[in-house]
């Protein structure tokens, strides 16, 4: 059991390494750091530009493999993720941002899974009841609203509430207020800023879990083994919990891990609209500025988040499904 999970985790680690390196090559191929210098006045010659890029291992005259090797060794030896074309160290930029984004994505993932699975189980066991119909209508509507529209709607509702109901704790911009001193006030302030972006992301995330969990549980509810369980004298609730739900949770456990990239995409939009300085916004800026190293660091961060989710999903699947051989 432990060995199985360790081996899987090692596999995921290898995946992150390969994916990050592949992104390095893709980014070097699709982004042109020289573009940043062509706009500058006085006009630089191509040679001057290349020379300016050389200290950051971005000089296009150096073969790509050599640049890659320089980048890789500095990441492995010093955990130094390189610099932008203008010489800003990526490490200085991502430390704070990674925390901000991880906070947002992790909290939203946990909340949306809890909400989604609970709703899915509740509504499937009371199929076509009023709660099922109502939550179905709400979920179908939410499912069909683009993240950008939802986030803007949340912003305008919050502004309206702040103006009309006299509330002053719904913050629509930034991840913290300036000039907050002390540990507890800082934590409180950050939590208040978290409310709206987390609400937006949770709304976007819970729907998929609710609908798939409902549909999966409905499939197993009519299975023979659940009927047999009822026949042995179990109550309906126990039959669902012990027999139907156990099978129906397997695909959900898998899909949770892989909903994280989608949530990260949602985080990019949410961070843009709420003005958070997280990895999502950083990614957009690095692409706009042709910052190869920054883009790769963002991809590595997103891959790491996904891998953590996948390892948790593997553990859950082993517990839930005895038929999946642990060999």
């Amino acid at each position, binding site marked *: 059991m432990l060995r199985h999970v360790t081996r899987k985790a090692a*596999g*995921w680690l290898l*995946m*992150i390494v*390969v*994916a990050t390196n*592949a*992104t390095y090559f*893709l*980014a070097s191929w*699709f*982004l042109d750091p020289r573009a940043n210098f062509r706009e500058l006045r006085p006009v630089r010659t191509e040679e001057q530009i290349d020379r300016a890029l050389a200290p950051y291992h971005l000089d296009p005259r150096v073969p790509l493999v050599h640049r890659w090797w320089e980048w890789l060794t500095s990441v492995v030896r010093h955990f130094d993720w390189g610099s932008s074309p203008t010489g800003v160290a990526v490490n200085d930029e991502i430390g704070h941002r990674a925390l901000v984004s991880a906070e947002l994505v992790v909290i939203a993932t946990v909340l949306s899974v809890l909400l989604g699975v609970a709703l899915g189980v509740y509504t499937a066991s009371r199929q076509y009841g009023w709660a099922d119909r109502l939550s179905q209508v709400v979920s*179908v*509507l939410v*499912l*069909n*609203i*683009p*993240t*950008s*529209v939802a986030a*803007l709607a949340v912003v*305008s509702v919050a502004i309206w509430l702040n103006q009309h109901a006299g509330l002053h704790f719904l913050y629509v911009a930034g991840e913290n207020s300036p000039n907050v001193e002390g540990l507890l006030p800082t934590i409180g302030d950050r939590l208040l800023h978290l409310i709206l972006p987390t609400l937006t992301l949770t709304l976007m995330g819970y729907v*998929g879990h609710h*609908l*798939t969990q409902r*549909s999966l549980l*409905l*499939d197993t509810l*009519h299975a023979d083994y659940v009927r047999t369980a009822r026949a042995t004298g179990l109550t309906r609730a126990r039959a669902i919990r012990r027999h139907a739900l156990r*099978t129906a949770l*397997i*695909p959900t456990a*898998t*899909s949770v891990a*892989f*909903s994280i*990239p*989608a949530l*990260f*995409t*949602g985080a*990019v*939009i949410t961070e*843009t609209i709420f003005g958070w300085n997280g990895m999502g916004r950083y*990614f*957009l800026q690095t*692409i706009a500025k042709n910052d190869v190293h920054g*883009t790769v660091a*963002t*991809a590595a961060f*997103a*891959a790491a988040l*996904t*891998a953590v989710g*996948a390892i948790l999903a593997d553990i859950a*699947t082993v517990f839930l*499904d005895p*038929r*999946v051989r642990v060999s």
Partner: protein
Amino acid sequence: MATTPETDAPAHRLSRLYLRRFLRNRLAVTGVALLVLLVLFSVCGGLLTPYTYADTDFTALTRPPDATHWFGTNQGGNDVYASAVHGLRRSLVIAVSVSALTVVVAAVIGTGAAYLGGRIERMTLAVLHFLLVVPSFLILALVSHRLAGDWRVLIVVLTVFGWMSTARVIWSVSTSLRERDYVRAAEFMGVSAPRIVRRHLIPNLGSLLIVHLTLGVVATVLSETALSFLGFGVQTPDVSLGTMLADGAGTVTSAPWLFAFPAGLVVLLTVSMTLIGDGLRDALDPTSVTGAAGGRR
């Protein structure tokens, strides 16, 4: 039914049963009606206006809806009605092709890997996991940043980076399915692997595939919207519902019509697909009892 079950071909009888169950579901029929209207609008809507999405009317910039410009105009003087017709068609074509391609690819790869097992399964999963940890959105943004948003390229890229999560779910369900007695029995009877995949695995995954097909259309519309909102999707001068939303997002309070019409169309499109998908799921589900009045078992 007029014909007796014995003389009817089983496939024919089954499809009639599915159709009857589907038509009983009022929401699903509403969804079909909505979708038909939307498709008609996207195909014939352009005939009702002299403007095309590319025309600019410099005498009417950012005008609210009136008799000449039914949905108003945007900051560049483009007719919003004509843009909406073109944008809806663009978004529909992208969403439907990507979703169909995605489900087919995912079903073949997911069930194939689960059934064949061994080295093929391990290699497929390795590739799949690899594509999953490279966050597709980031790659998509990288690639379309350079390729300047041709919609055909977008279809290919969205499919290439879109099939994995569906395939992963299908694979994990299939690994449970392949241990079932009837699959084992078919194996011992000498049924070939492709036939087992086709006759036993895929039909048992039917409801999952349908859910993923409809969610796929919805998801594609939404990811196209997301990409365009950030400037990575379909790009000007071409128009999709996503670029129209991005256009109107900045002026939600001052020029709401720029935002309201594409937002309404997106939601109508995705809601209708979801209703159809749910109706199909109920109709195809072998354990479902709705619509099976008397005739079955």
